């Protein structure tokens, strides 16, 4: 058989039927339902008179629209109070496992999948959410789909997809001290652009990827969609196996051995080729912060806001000007030192234990600047409990950062937890789109380290110089 990539191997193993023009009907091993698109899809199949083909391969959890206020209930956010009961009722009606709002397993779909070992190498995973690529960090083929496609998965346990091209992104060498996984993925997006990965599945490779912990890998794969790639994967290796071993839904005993043997065959064959290759020097990656309204608008934390007159094309000149006026920034100004109103640490990009640990290390013994509202929203109940038992939550709280309940919160602001109009936030999330964190909210994407340092000083701050 000819040499194949990780992506080829997982895709091929899931083909139920080859159709024409490169379209395949693919088997879905796990579909995750949340309180927005999941509810729509459950309603949709009910209205079409269809049933759920494999309830044992589904999981439902509310995360998007629920409040993250301490002491919350499903009703805390009145504007979307029906989403939780509808998800619960839909899941129960079809015999789907449902994790309730304050259950110890609750969390953002892309945080709990890996955390409970529901996500395994070689699986095909779907969810009505574009950051489903996160699960690719474990060597799964995972991607976001629309709610009609979710209905399709519910009714048939399959999905119709066209085979994408493949792009390998190799991060060579070692990250510099102070650079984080968030900086790796932001630099890539800055380099290839918000549409640079369109129509492609990405495999992240190279020594700087192999050196990452599983949590770091999850951060990298999470933002694949921000350069247009629905899929971002990393070959499973010992880091993956050590991470999974013993997790609640991971196989055990003889099943584990059997699965492990299959997973060891997944990495890309040496002779396999990609439609495109991008190589990035990891050592040259500086801590990143975005200045505009697309994740591709990223610069080094010690850099300057670009001048639209220097934009490479007319379209970009226009986009940069619009972005600068929305963001209230001027060309040429240093991005560091820009006063901020809010800090948000959380989301499926940076809402895991190591993210709060990194933030705590920075704010330890310090106080959030006057006038700044800083939130830490754990990605899951498990993250919350662990951060509390390790004293991380206490460090954050003593610094004046609000420690909240798990959910998406201000990442998407559908639950009313918005950045108020005109206010400026440093956010560890994945999207700085116009209005993403609320109407007229100004978002700067960055790592938890930069977010924490900025909370302390009240201006966008390079954590490497916090003591200067």
């Amino acid at each position, binding site marked *: 058989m000819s040499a194949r990539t990780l992506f080829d191997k997982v895709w091929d193993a899931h083909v139920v039927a080859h159709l*024409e023009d490169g379209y395949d*009907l693919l088997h879905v091993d796990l579909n995750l339902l949340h309180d927005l698109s999941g509810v729509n899809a459950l309603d949709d199949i009910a209205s079409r008179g269809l049933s759920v083909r494999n309830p044992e391969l589904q999981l439902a959890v509310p995360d998007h629209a629920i409040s993250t206020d301490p002491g919350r209930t499903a009703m805390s956010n009145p504007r979307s109070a029906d989403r939780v009961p509808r998800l619960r009722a839909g899941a129960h009606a079809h015999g789907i496992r449902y994790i309730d709002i304050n259950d110890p397993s609750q969390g953002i779909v892309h945080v709990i999948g890996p955390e409970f070992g529901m996500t395994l190498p070689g699986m095909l995973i779907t969810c009505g959410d574009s950051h489903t690529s996160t699960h690719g960090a474990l060597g799964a083929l995972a991607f976001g789909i*629309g709610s009609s496609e979710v209905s*399709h998965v519910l009714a*048939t346990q399959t999905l119709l997809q066209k085979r994408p091209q493949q792009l390998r992104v190799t991060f060579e060498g070692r990250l510099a001290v102070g650079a984080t996984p968030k900086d790796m993925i932001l630099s890539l997006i800055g380099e290839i652009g918000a549409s640079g990965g369109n129509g492609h599945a990405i495999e992240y490779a190279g020594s700087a990827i192999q050196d990452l912990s599983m949590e770091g890998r999850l951060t990298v794969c999470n933002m694949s969609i921000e350069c*247009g790639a629905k899929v971002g994967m990393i070959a499973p290796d010992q880091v993956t196996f050590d991470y999974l071993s013993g997790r*609640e839904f991971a196989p055990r005993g003889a099943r584990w051995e059997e699965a492990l043997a299959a997973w060891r065959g997944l990495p890309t064959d040496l002779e396999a080729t990609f439609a495109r290759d991008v190589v990035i020097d990891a050592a040259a990656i500086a801590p990143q912060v975005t200045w505009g309204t697309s994740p591709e608008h990223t610069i080094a934390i010690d850099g300057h806001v670009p001048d639209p007159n220097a934009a490479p094309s007319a*379209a970009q000149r226009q986009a940069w000007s619009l972005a600068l006026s929305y963001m209230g920034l001027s060309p040429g100004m240093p991005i560091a030192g820009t006063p901020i109103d809010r800090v948000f640490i959380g989301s499926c990009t940076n809402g895991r234990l190591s993210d709060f640990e990194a933030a705590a290390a920075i704010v330890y013994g310090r106080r959030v600047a006057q006038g700044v509202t800083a939130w830490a929203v754990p990605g899951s109940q498990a993250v919350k409990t662990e951060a509390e038992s390790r004293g991380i939550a206490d460090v954050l709280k003593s610094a004046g950062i609000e420690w909240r309940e798990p959910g998406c919160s201000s990442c998407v602001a559908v639950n009313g937890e918005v950045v108020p109009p005109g206010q400026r936030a440093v956010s560890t999330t994945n999207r700085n789109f116009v209005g993403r964190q609320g109407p007229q909210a100004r978002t700067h994407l960055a790592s938890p380290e930069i977010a924490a340092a900025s909370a302390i000083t009240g201006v966008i701050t390079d954590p490497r110089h916090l003591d200067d």
Partner: protein
Amino acid sequence: MEPFCRVTGPAAPLARDNVDTDVIIRIERLAELDRDALGSYAFEALRYRPDGSEDPDFILNQVAYRDAPILLAGENFGCGSSREGAVWALAGCGIRCVIAKSFGGIFANNCYQNGVLPIALSGSCVDALTMRALDRQGAAFTVDLDAKTIAPPGGEPITFSIDGLRRRALLAGLDDLGLTLQITDAIGSFQQRDRIARPWIWQRSLLPNAPGNKR
């Protein structure tokens, strides 16, 4: 699903790159409203000023393009969030066809589920159509899916390409589910084989009352 055969009407030149689905429809609207109510909220952040009044500069607020069934966009239209509500909102304000330089992949798939035709053309082609639309202020374009042509006002039709499977499904008014329900036997046999090949996927049931589930 409503079949797509041919659409005639003005083409609104949006002429921006990286228009994301958050901008097409705000997420709160999806949590609060039914899908049929989304049309008047399409492009909310661009269409209305902070005080709620219409921004006359926005293309869909201009008389010539108010009822345009065709949208002319730039690179990477519909990037970002997977929200299908973006397509529902566009369809709700009467848009049946989007012509762009490229599309966000999930958005394009969502279009096919809702009888909306996404056409990707080269940058120079889209720019030429955009110029034409601006020149002719609201004159009608015709997009014909059967013939795979776009006829701009007062110009020769140009052809576009689309995968045969997508074209036939749109012409017939079938979404993906409609297609797949015709071949469910293949799914049964795949699953039978897979249960033996990968027992670890199947023997760890996530079901609410499966044995071994602690919670």
